[in-house]
């Protein structure tokens, strides 16, 4: 005896398969998207926390000499960034009479006189190196090579007008952190 309209135990559920498959696809897509967004947010927070920790170390005393900066670089900045698994560059600028933030790029301003650079990254540009006597465009060069970086800027007192001067003047610390 044949039942009317009955096309088998699976065939009878064919109309429901479309919304079920659609639901599964959309749900899986949502989970994948959410996972990506969650990881991206965590990575961003991690970068910013690392930048903040590095800036705490750099600004703790409120004043730095080039030698103190290099000591901090070797004993604090590099080990911490290595532990955190991030790239970083800390640029130490001596401005003295006025902070030159309005000319060229406002976040990677040029600087006058000697400064310091501490980084664990390998830059393509030969202009960037870790010697104290950097060329004036180092900040801009770092900006050109780094993508999606967290940048924090802080004022700091530096010996002015030269490293051996007894007077303290205006300086700036740029903390730049980005993913490896």
């Amino acid at each position, binding site marked *: 005896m044949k039942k009317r309209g009955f096309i088998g135990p699976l065939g*009878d*559920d064919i*109309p429901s398969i479309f919304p079920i498959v659609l639901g*599964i696809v959309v749900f899986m897509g949502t989970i994948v998207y959410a996972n990506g967004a*969650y990881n991206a947010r965590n990575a961003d927070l991690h970068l910013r926390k690392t930048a903040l920790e590095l800036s705490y170390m750099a600004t703790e005393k409120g004043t730095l000499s080039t030698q103190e900066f290099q000591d901090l670089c070797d004993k604090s900045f590099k080990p911490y960034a290595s532990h955190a698994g991030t790239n970083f560059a800390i640029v130490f600028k001596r401005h003295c*009479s006025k902070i030159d933030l*309005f*000319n060229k790029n406002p976040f990677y301003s040029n600087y006058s006189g000697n400064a310091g650079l501490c980084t664990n990254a390998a830059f393509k540009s030969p202009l960037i190196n870790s010697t104290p006597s950097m060329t004036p465009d180092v900040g801009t060069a770092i900006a050109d090579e780094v993508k999606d970086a967290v940048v924090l800027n802080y*004022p700091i007192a530096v010996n002015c007008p030269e490293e051996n001067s007894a*007077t303290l003047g205006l300086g700036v610390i740029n903390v730049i952190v980005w993913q490896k």
Partner: protein
Amino acid sequence: MRGQAAIFDGIMFLMLVSFSMAMVFTFLNTYGIAQDNVIRSSHTLNYMQSVMKSIYLIDASTLAQADSNAGDCTKGDCQNETGVYGEDMNCSQLASWQVSVGDVVKKDLVDGRLDDKFGTNGAEAPGKTALRCLFREVMKPFRQAGYNYFVEVLDPDNIRPIQSWTTGVTSYSRPRAELAYPAPWVTDTGTGYAGVYSCEDPHINATALLAVSTPFRVQPPGKDDAAYEKDCGGEDTIENYAWPKGSSCPGPTGVINPLGYQLRVCVWPA
């Protein structure tokens, strides 16, 4: 009937999926906001700490070139901010002050007023100018990020700005502010916030305001200082709250302890 039931199952499943998606997106929208706020506040606090340290460390004479009309735009050094700070901040007068900005401010504040001089007709002590020139420089990154700032001194007895102080009056007093703490203020608000006289000013959106205070101890004049004699003689030389604790006319006796002023910096989105 079976076909209809199956479609109903499918639609129910879709609804369940929609509900789950809504929950996932709600979580994503709120996740990290608290951490984000904490990190922002930490950065602001660290910045303010750096600024306050710079007050004690930076030599006032190095700020002599930090004027609102500094730089020559035709030579690629455009730092003109006369629209924000006025035509002349008079930073050049700091050239001979080879002490820290904090020392100049304390010298200015001995009489209880931040007005660039000691007493009403007294000696030059450009504490306010030094503070304005310093803040013009050290707040540049923050200003570029879209914030305004205001700096004021809180009196030693109450957590109130000295420009608001009036005997027996506890609320903010604009006339008193204009008298006790004459313009220009230590701020970048310029023409945009011409009516701002304090961090407590109602022109500022208080919900977005962040204020940081730091202790700023100032030693009152010695007990034989002529300022006390003048003050008791009728001249308005030293504000009441700037007198040493427990002393009265004709002058203090015994040990004079420093007064616990506070410097307060407030920032808010422009």
